[in-house]
């Protein structure tokens, strides 16, 4: 028996993937144009430098990466803007898909892998779009939309399951809260990880420039400096960390109601804990000599890798109470 609402939901989700894919292309175009633009800038700087050096000045300017231009070129703005518009359309389709899935199942749409992926990526997109209204993060449009397309692709191909009722152990408000907060936290951590990755690239670029090697990844010239990226990453992961702390606590309360103990080092509990500790390490690293900057950015990425591992590998391959998440039927 196929639930018609679920079918519509799946169709909408596939359309959302398609729209996100076009958004990705638009954002990629934006990045390509940034690259070309900063090439033009470099040429400009070179000319100035040539003039200066022929006039007896130094050619130091060549080594310094060009500063971001005052305003982006018009073509680029159009590409980035259509990327955002497409992402909004994708998010609307995506949201409708999730809502219909929830109606079809008669509960919140986050009770199995397919649904986590669906709602979790929706939250990632929404967090990104909201962040865009406050900070210019358009350069992350391509990586974020690309990542969402990949995750949703995997979810629809490998994890799709027909709607089914919740087993009794999962019928709890704490589960609703626990998973919702975990997905929200993941949304923030995703953005923070992207920023830390950009920060590391930015540091690499500066190092190359300082050692006088030719520049690669010119588009980074239009991206904020490493320091600023680090601060943004920090601010966003702080929110993620608070949410993850709530995830840990809500999970413990739920475990207490369902299994009679609030903490039992079950596989998923272990990984939730590991993630929390790694991010605590990241927050500490920002205040530790020798770790701030690049070191803390790596820790942020390691934390995110643990999140992906927890979702993609632990859920599927590891053995634990969460993996069958039903009532253990044996009275042993």
């Amino acid at each position, binding site marked *: 028996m196929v639930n018609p609402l679920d079918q519509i939901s799946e169709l909408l989700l596939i359309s959302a993937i398609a729209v996100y894919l076009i958004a990705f292309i638009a954002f990629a175009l934006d990045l390509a144009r940034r690259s070309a633009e900063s090439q033009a800038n470099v040429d400009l700087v070179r000319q100035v430098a040539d003039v200066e050096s022929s006039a007896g000045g130094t050619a130091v300017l060549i080594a310094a990466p060009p500063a971001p231009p005052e305003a982006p070129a018009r073509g680029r703005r159009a590409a980035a803007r259509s990327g955002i518009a497409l992402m909004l359309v994708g998010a609307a389709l995506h949201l409708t898909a999730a809502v219909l899935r929830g109606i079809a199942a008669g509960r919140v749409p986050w009770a199995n892998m397919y649904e986590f992926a669906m709602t979790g990526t929706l939250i990632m997109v929404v967090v990104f779009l909201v962040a865009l209204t406050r900070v210019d993060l358009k350069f992350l449009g391509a990586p974020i939309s690309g990542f969402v397309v990949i995750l949703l692709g995997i979810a629809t191909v490998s994890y799709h399951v027909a709607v089914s009722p919740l087993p009794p152990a999962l*019928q709890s408000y704490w589960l609703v809260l626990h998973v919702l907060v975990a997905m929200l936290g993941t949304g923030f951590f995703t953005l923070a990880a992207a920023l830390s990755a950009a920060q590391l690239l930015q540091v690499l670029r500066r190092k190359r420039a300082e050692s006088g090697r030719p520049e690669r990844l010119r588009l980074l010239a239009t991206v904020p400096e490493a*320091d600023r990226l*680090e*601060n943004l990453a920090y601010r966003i992961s702080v929110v993620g960390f*608070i949410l993850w702390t709530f995830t840990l606590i809500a999970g413990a309360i739920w475990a207490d*109601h369902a299994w009679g103990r609030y903490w039992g080092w079950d596989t998923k509990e272990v990984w939730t804990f590991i993630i929390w500790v790694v991010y605590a*390490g990241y927050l500490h690293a920002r205040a*530790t000599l020798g770790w701030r900057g690049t070191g803390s950015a790596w820790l942020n990425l390691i934390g995110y890798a643990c999140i992906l591992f927890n979702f993609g590998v632990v859920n599927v391959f590891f053995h*634990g109470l969460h993996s069958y998440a039903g009532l253990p039927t*044996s009275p042993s």
Partner: protein
Amino acid sequence: MSRPSDAQNSFSDDKASEEAGVVNPRLGPLEWVRWGWRTLTSMRTALLLLLALAVAAVPGSLIPQNSSDPNGVIQYQQANPGLSKVVDALQGFDVYTSLWFSAIYLLLFISLIGCVVPRLRHHWKAMRKAPPRTPSRFTQLPSSSSVRLRGVAVEEALAAGERVLKSARYRTARYGTSVSAERGYLRETGNLLFHSALVGVLVTVFVGGGFTYTGQRVLVTGDTFVNAQTSYDSLTPGRFFNDGSLQGYSLKLDRLDVAYEQQNLAAFGEAIDYTAHVTTRLPGQQPKSAVIKVNSPLEIAGTSVYLLGNGYAAHVTVTNPDGSVAFSQSVPFRPQNTQMTSLGVVKVPDTTNQKKQIGLVGFLYPTAAEQTDGSFTSIFPAAGKQSLVSFLVYEGNVGLDAGTPRNVYELDTSHMKEVAGTKDPVQLKIGQARTLPDGLGTVKLDGITRYAAFDIHHDPSQQWVALFVALAVLGLITSLLVPRRRMWIKVREEGDEVLVEYAGLARGDDPNLARAVADLEKRHRAALPEAAREKASV
């Protein structure tokens, strides 16, 4: 200011250990101790210990653990006999209570205490000190602005500045013709609260754990449990457990209702609800009915009663050839799959011929369906008229006399002879009776009821753990979200105008510093007399 300098300033230990790391040829024993302590309580050690803790937690998720998955441990040992010796030697089946894991978190918490105590002292002093002196030049600060005003006296401007800052909850002090202000002590307070509360969580978990007990009991419908040590199938007491720890009460299982999905074919036959109806009775009180569900335990007499398992119990009567009753009891069967095909064992020691004790190994098919090869399977988990129990029959010694406890779900057939096998099992529907082979008498299936497996917990430390967790969350949120800032207003007379300068400095990460300085300027000018609100022409 891009990175939190907070920890560095308020936390000089970090720098000290940094210096201590430099080779220092002659250290006396006392210096070594001091060096060790400084290193242990340094920020870098804390970070490394945190990362070590994360790494050390990983193996416990890869290898089955005795605490959470004892059956997995046995399987693992059978599958890798050689490797599991090594794993066992490294306490790999008990990672979270192992020496090495404990060492890491104990060191971490010692480091934490060593780091929180001096910070508490420092913070206590800092909270009562006046805000710091006004810096001489504002232009070096991350955020500053200035404005020339006319028609206002220096003193008037200063007083207005103080008022504005105080109303924004800054603590202020005057230094000459400037106001210095600071806010956000709460940030450090929150941080200290968070770290102290973590210690609280650890201590309450440890000390409180000693007062807990956890027990299991399988109750067949109609049976009663009393909260006494002998009434448990198994009981795991904490360190400080004694007989007085068990508060007396009784709990009778009246009915266990189970609902199965029947509409949605994708999930057909899946259990969607378990509800145990029970009657409880406290000493000297009237009995009360209550309901226990999977996610809602029953709280009674300081214990929580959880519904954690269920299954079918078959009521079986075995009659000796002379007509006397050898056995008449409900026997719990252990479910084998989602359709509740269940396996159970009936041990009958009280036969007239003691050489021929009877052992029955039964398969219970709640909704029996015959397969093409003549064997049965269950196609739906609900029991009733359609149910079938199929017994293999053994005679000999059932092994109950030795006095050693035996698993009620297993029959040791090594001293027994099979008299009815898989080819000719004794099959019974509810209410049916059959003759047993070899003149053993008769067996009757009187009925099939449900049983519930309850876990009974007593954990007096839980409220305390919850309290410290709540404090930790409160501390965390304030420490991460409250901005800590210093603000200054400097006023100087220049001819018939006054020059007012504003500046701000964040301690820690503060995205809104520039906005706060601009806001200060705006609010300060709004607090000045009407005449002074106009900017003087430059």
